[in-house]
């Protein structure tokens, strides 16, 4: 139960921080993408079983507050949650370099997936300036180790027991 409360609070917190506060850290209109980094964090740390639903619900919340194709962020973030979670064991989770690397590619994947989904659904493709296409993954990947550390501390605040049931099931 505690685990679900933790996840629910985390999702709402991420989205609220993204909407209300992160705009103040924008550089040339590029805002840190806490929602995407959150999906990568949970997928990298807990694997695809948690990465998929976290990606879906964070994407859904993002779609609710953003413009454009409703459901597109759900789809993209579910796939990112699955992909990062699947490669989780091949990456050194605590290593800042692998965090930077994964977030960088997740940002690129998100941009290009959105581009092609928009075209597929007959919408004009996003007209994002080239500088932003490059700067967006760079900025987010550089912030990733710090945000990962903060998320780790946030998770520790809730105690180690929140994933105990999952571990017990795996052990069985």
């Amino acid at each position, binding site marked *: 139960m505690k685990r679900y409360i933790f996840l629910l609070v985390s999702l709402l917190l991420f989205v609220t921080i993204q909407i*209300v506060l992160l*705009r103040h850290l924008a550089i040339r209109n590029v805002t840190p993408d806490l929602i995407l980094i959150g999906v990568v964090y949970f997928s990298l740390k807990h694997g695809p079983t948690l990465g998929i639903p976290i990606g879906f619900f964070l994407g859904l919340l*993002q779609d*609710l507050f*953003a*413009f454009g194709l409703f*459901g597109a962020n759900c789809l993209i973030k579910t796939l990112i949650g699955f992909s990062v979670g699947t490669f989780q064991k091949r990456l050194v989770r605590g290593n800042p370099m692998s965090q930077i690397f994964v977030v960088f590619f997740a940002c690129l994947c998100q941009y290009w997936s959105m581009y092609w989904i928009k075209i597929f659904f007959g919408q004009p493709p*996003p007209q*994002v300036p080239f500088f*932003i296409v490059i700067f967006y993954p760079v900025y987010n990947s550089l912030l990733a180790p710090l945000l990962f550390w903060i998320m780790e501390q946030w998770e520790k605040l809730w105690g180690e027991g929140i994933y105990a049931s999952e571990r017990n099931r795996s052990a069985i």
Partner: protein
Amino acid sequence: MLLKEKHKLLRLLIIYLSISLLLLIFRTGRIVKVGRALFLYLLAPSPRIVSKLLSETGRIGRSISQLVSAREENKILQERITSLLQEKEKLQETISESKRLKRILNYQEETPYELVSARVVGWTPSLFSSALLIDKGINQGFEKDTPVVAWQEGGNPQDPGVAPMKSERLNGMAVVGRISESGPDMSKVLLITDSNSELAAMVQRSREKGVIAGTGERSLLLKYLSPTADLEIGDLIITSGMGRIFPAGLVIGSVEEVLRGVGGLEKRAWVVPRVNINQLEDVQIIKR
């Protein structure tokens, strides 16, 4: 990974992907729309909470900076200085706010439109759209395509080179965007800088008409002007009223650079918006 686990994972992925695809396909359907409105209503951070959070963040930020700068001072002096500084800040804020509100009030008396103030409660969380969330919605009588403006003072701080010279001309009410989606007590405002935004505009001095489009960046692009259009750097660009969303005569921004269009068939220009969107705290909605 065991085969059973793999199957379980695949099932999970297929379920979530199917729901996502269904949402995408039926995004304009009634059920999805009602669901969206309901969830938005339930999840929208209440303006009060957001305002409190913002002021709290500002207070924490100020406290940290004060702590760093006053590290070597003794405790009594630090307390006195801190309280005096906070009082001064509060006073300055009150003075500037009252000045701004007075000007808005004067403008409101002169303007033919009825303006209603709304507080900015957030920004949409997407790289692909520039939009604001405001604390007014259907309950206050604001629906899709309602124009939103804001008061800008002392030029555009995004462009410090232009501000000192033309600050006088850059003072006043300016276009921010239009409401693109309304909830009961909250609306999304599509900003003029968004790449999906286009509105009918004209050059105030020469009355040349064109379309101003957002680029997703700081500047706007004025396009579809005739190749012989009379256009100079610094010219004010205003709404032409042709799109029927914005009333005519509202200031959008000023020309920063004049360009030749593709093949010389049209003239284009980069326009700096009068309003500094990143610093918006409240906006005015034009009531129809």
